[in-house]
């Protein structure tokens, strides 16, 4: 028998991209934002990042070990989830809170639904919302930092007693902030979201490595910026363009748009669906931030849209090669045919009964 003739099932060629590779590239892309967070808030921030990552990996390992499943901690997905949870924490928080969040994300949101690829919402954001609801006070108090960078505290402390003096709470009043502080990251906020430039660098790195596509973050940020600009002009704020730029850079929007909304598992796979998803995210974030009473709404927007992904995919399914998209007229005729068939069947049955 000719050994050159191999019979095998498809696929016959495989790409070089693996889950491992993707996850480690995402970790690398998150690194600049983490470095800026640690620079801004000091070693306690580093401890939180380490604890949340380690506890996510450990809980994945223990769950799979106890349930005699294949151990998947080497693919790096648990580490990404854990690191994102850590980046979503205020810098001075007790270390057990991100630890609890990681356990919840991995066990309840990811593993109970079947592990990587089966979860219906982004585990890191699910955990963030779990913690935000449970420990509202601790999760929305932000320290002014003990790191190498001097934190700008231009914001008057009285703007918003509940969410502290984050730039977002300040922007909520319609005033503008120091844009360079927002870009570099010497502001108050969560560990991973302080520096817009560092996050943007990570996002562009992922784009260049073809890990993510521009569709979701592009439409998300674009749609949000457009709506915010219109609102700022309509409300007569002093500097609408600056205000829009600062809304884009402040809070978790950058981190959410580049790293969380683009999660493969919980975003649509169809190109049109991704655009719909991004636009809806931009709209929801605008509603939460500028219309609603809170200052931040990125995480709720993303997990809300995560739930709608199956619906979006259903309605944006591309037509298979060689098939013709059904015209409206055609569908109407088919419906008529079916109804007529039902009537005939019913009439036949009645005759039989009689």
């Amino acid at each position, binding site marked *: 028998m000719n050994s050159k003739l191999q019979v095998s099932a498809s696929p016959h060629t495989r790409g070089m991209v693996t889950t491992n590779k993707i996850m480690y590239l995402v970790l690398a892309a998150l690194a600049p934002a983490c470095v800026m967070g640690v620079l801004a808030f000091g070693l306690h921030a580093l401890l939180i990042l380490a604890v949340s990552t380690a506890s996510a990996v450990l809980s994945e390992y223990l769950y799979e070990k106890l349930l005699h499943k294949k151990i998947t901690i080497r693919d790096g997905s648990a580490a990404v989830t854990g690191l994102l949870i850590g980046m979503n924490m205020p810098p001075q928080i007790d270390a057990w809170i991100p630890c*609890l969040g990681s356990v919840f994300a991995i066990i*309840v949101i990811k593993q109970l639904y079947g592990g990587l690829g089966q979860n219906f919402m982004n585990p890191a954001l699910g955990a963030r919302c*779990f913690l935000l*609801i*449970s*420990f*509202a006070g601790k999760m929305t108090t932000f320290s002014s930092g003990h790191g190498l960078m001097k934190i700008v505290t231009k914001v008057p402390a009285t703007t918003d007693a509940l969410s502290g003096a984050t730039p977002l709470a300040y922007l909520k009043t319609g005033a503008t902030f120091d844009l360079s502080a927002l870009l570099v990251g010497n502001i108050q906020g969560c560990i991973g979201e302080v520096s817009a430039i560092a996050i943007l660098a990570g996002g562009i790195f992922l784009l260049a490595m073809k890990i993510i596509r521009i569709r979701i973050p592009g439409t998300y940020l674009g749609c949000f910026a457009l709506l915010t600009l219109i609102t700022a002009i309509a409300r007569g704020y002093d500097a609408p363009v600056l205000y829009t730029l600062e809304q884009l850079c402040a809070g978790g929007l950058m981190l959410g748009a580049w790293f969380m909304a683009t999660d493969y598992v919980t975003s649509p796979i169809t190109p049109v669906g991704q655009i719909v998803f991004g636009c809806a995210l931009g709209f929801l974030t605008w509603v939460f931030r500028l219309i609603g009473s809170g200052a931040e709404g990125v995480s709720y927007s993303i997990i809300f849209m995560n739930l709608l992904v199956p619906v979006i995919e259903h309605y944006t399914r591309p037509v298979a090669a060689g098939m013709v998209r059904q015209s409206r007229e055609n569908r109407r005729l088919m419906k008529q045919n079916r109804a007529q068939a039902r009537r005939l069947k019913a009439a036949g049955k009645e005759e039989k009964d009689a």
Partner: protein
Amino acid sequence: MSAKNPGIMVDPELSGKRFQLSRYIHLKKDTAPERVANGIYFENPVFMLALGMCPTLATTTSVTNAIGMGLSTTVILIMSNLFISLLRGIIPDRMRMPSYIVIIASFVTIVDFLMEGFTPAMYESLGVYIPLIVVNCIIMGRAEAYAGKHGPLSAVADGVGMGIGFTIALIVVAAVRELLGSGSLAGVRVMPDSYEPINIFVLAPGAFLVLAVFVAIMNRLHIGAPRRGDDWDPTGRFVCGDCASCPRVNGCSGKPAAETSGSREGRG
């Protein structure tokens, strides 16, 4: 046991290892102990039948509320089962639903006024969920599935069993939620002062999380238990085999309980 049980796919290795109460308890059908055991375990309204989800999710924020809700439902369930069973010869088949609702609503009104008069604090905290017992799926379900077909004694026993089963389920769910969500049990602080309450457990998402875990545990215990054709049949009514005397023989699909999923017709 599973050899006689061709309709249900059970991994024989797994089913042997699982805890099966029916192996140890053999009870005669439609006797009082059997009905009570059925309501508490085999057809537990919350964990097995997934009925009465609305009060289960809403009133289990504290053990006190759960006891109040469970007991008031139990009283109404017993009384409505008794009267529906007594009147089952008079109520025409077509008019049975409105008649059942009138009977149930009468008892709910009585309990509602009694609670308002004697336990005002409880009445306040349960709020709209007391009047809502009228449309509680467990009560309608038992009236439809059991009390309307059986004698008053077994109907009352069925009400007692289902009521206790419901109350136990509520207390168990509420205990976990209150312990984690406020660090207390029945209003008494039991966790150490350093414990930080996880607020989400007293809110709606926590109710779903805790309930899901308990249903999963019950499924784990119950899958592999004997069903059709065994010497004791825990979900008896859909495979009664007594079609001659059954009033709803025309509408009956005749399928075993495993396929028609119990009394889910009344879910809500």
